[in-house]
């Protein structure tokens, strides 16, 4: 029987190799599955809110019950999740029934005039002012969570788990890049019209925001040197023409990747929505320093035709398959993926998150496939 320390070392070595796009004995496994795991481990989703230590303990039990999972943590506390989405949180146990998934209720406060505020005073200033005014409760939640977070992160470590993107203190780029941040603040419909009506104004504000975020990113990567930085860009899928994608999204995304790599870390590319149209772009990123992480929507196999050999893969069982599919279907999907890209640089996971109502036997099938059972 290996000690937790030995297990952790083994997990870390495996994960490092996979990230570097090297051969591993088996794909390391990571699950973004808090709402599923807490229940699978004997708790309720509301435990994560009302008693986060106990809730996360249940998640750890859930991980242990599933088998030899490599990654876990650093810990979940839903009430602080709205911070980056300009959103109020509705959480189970307080606003919602015990086993409901939390809701992120975006307030979309940003007006056309606010572009000038951002140009003058910065996006950080704008965000802080917003939080003070509209989310006064968030500060208290952050104060409550601040001392708990490292304690809970340590619980996962003590159980032998490693994290892909740092232990909660590590940097990540603004969720979805500056474009994603603006999308939350302004609302997607309004932003998409702004980039047609007042493109120069939007660009000027985005540049100011990016200046701030890229500086913070460089400092944080230098300080914490996480294995990977959680990065990505909103605006994929059918939102924009290639011309607009190349103007508003890709340059900043590429620059984030360059900063992270220059500072000695790697990139976990968290890619929401369909990236089929943009796969060629990803070939511009440095070789063997990125993990391609789609959310179940991008065609993983077509992507592999281009990206295999250039970067590692993270993926990517579809949430609907985990919920409505059968274990055989899930197992077959994972095997197909492993046959295609699994001989090196594959991290076994699901597309973005495991649904709270995934069938346990389907999640077990993902693990069985990865462990070679």
């Amino acid at each position: 029987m290996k000690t937790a320390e030995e297990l952790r070392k083994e997990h870390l070595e495996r994960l490092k190799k996979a990230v570097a796009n090297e051969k591993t004995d088996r794909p390391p496994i990571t699950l973004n599955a808090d709402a599923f795991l807490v229940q699978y481990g004997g708790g309720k989703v509301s435990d994560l809110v009302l008693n986060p230590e106990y809730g996360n303990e249940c998640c750890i039990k859930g991980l242990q019950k599933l088998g030899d999972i490599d990654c876990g943590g650093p810990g979940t506390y839903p009430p602080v999740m709205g911070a980056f989405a300009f959103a109020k949180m509705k959480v189970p146990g307080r606003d919602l029934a015990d086993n409901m998934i939390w809701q992120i209720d975006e307030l979309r406060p940003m007006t056309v005039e606010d572009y000038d505020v951002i140009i003058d005073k910065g996006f950080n200033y704008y965000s802080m002012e917003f939080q003070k005014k509209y989310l006064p409760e968030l500060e208290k939640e952050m104060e409550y969570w601040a001392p708990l977070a490292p304690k809970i992160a340590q619980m996962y470590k003590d159980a032998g788990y490693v994290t892909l993107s740092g232990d909660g203190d590590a940097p990540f780029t603004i969720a979805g890049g500056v474009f994603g941040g603006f999308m939350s603040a302004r609302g997607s419909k309004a932003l998409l019209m702004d980039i047609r009506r007042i493109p120069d104004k939007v660009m000027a504000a985005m540049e100011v925001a990016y200046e701030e975020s890229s500086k913070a990113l460089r400092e944080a990567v230098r300080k914490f040197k996480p294995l990977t930085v959680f990065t990505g860009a909103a605006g994929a899928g059918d939102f924009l023409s290639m011309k607009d994608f190349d103007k508003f999204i890709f340059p900043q995304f590429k620059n984030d990747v360059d900063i992270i790599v220059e500072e000695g870390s790697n990139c976990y590319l968290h890619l929401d929505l369909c990236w089929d149209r943009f796969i060629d772009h990803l070939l511009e990123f440095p070789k063997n320093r990125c993990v391609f992480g789609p959310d179940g929507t991008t065609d993983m196999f077509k992507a592999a035709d281009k990206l295999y050999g250039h970067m590692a893969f993270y993926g990517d069982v579809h949430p609907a398959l985990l919920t409505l599919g059968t274990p055989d279907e899930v197992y077959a999907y994972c095997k197909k993926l492993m046959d295609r890209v699994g001989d090196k640089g594959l991290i076994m996971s699901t597309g973005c998150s495991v649904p709270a109502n995934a069938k346990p036997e389907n999640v077990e099938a993902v693990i069985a496939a990865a462990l070679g059972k």
Partner: protein
Amino acid sequence: MSNKLVEAMADLNEDAVLEEVKALKAKNVPALDIIASLQEGMGIVGKRFEEKEYFLSELIMSAEIFNEASQLLGGMGGAGTASKYGTFVMGTIYDDIHDIGKNIVTTVMSSNGFNVIDLGVDVPTAKYVEAIRQYKPKVIGISCLLTTAFDNIKECIQTLEKEGLRKDVKVLIGGGPVDEATCKYVGADHVCRNAQETVEYSKKYMGVQ
């Protein structure tokens, strides 16, 4: 038909559309004829979207320009086209707050001649029932991005059945993880992948060629 207006609409030239609508109005061209030109332009936008020359950003912009132009004509009601194709009731199912896709669908549907009733997000079954009784739509839309809410759509459709409302409405569903298997599971009529498809299917179900 004003070619200039059709073209400006298709090219999303907001200023040119509004100017031309004003000019035509000043020349006493009937509102219905002006709307027909705008709709011709919207048809081209739809085609360009299908051909992947336009994307959601262009689709939303076209709907916005169309709505502004019809305001100049006294609103869709004023132009006498409020329910050219009938009423479409839509919302995001309860427990789910995703609305980006829903808002695109409702915007595009209303600029394509449907009278849209938007029920918002986190919509309980009772609200669908009430809206169906009140507006008697032939087609309703349920948006859902969460697998955890699939059972809610199922419950909603079963309730429509129990209330005797199901046979008179077609139920379209859509949203990220929703697929054919979901459609079958919840008992809906059709999954639409995007707003343009929603327009096509609703026209079909409402008997518009």
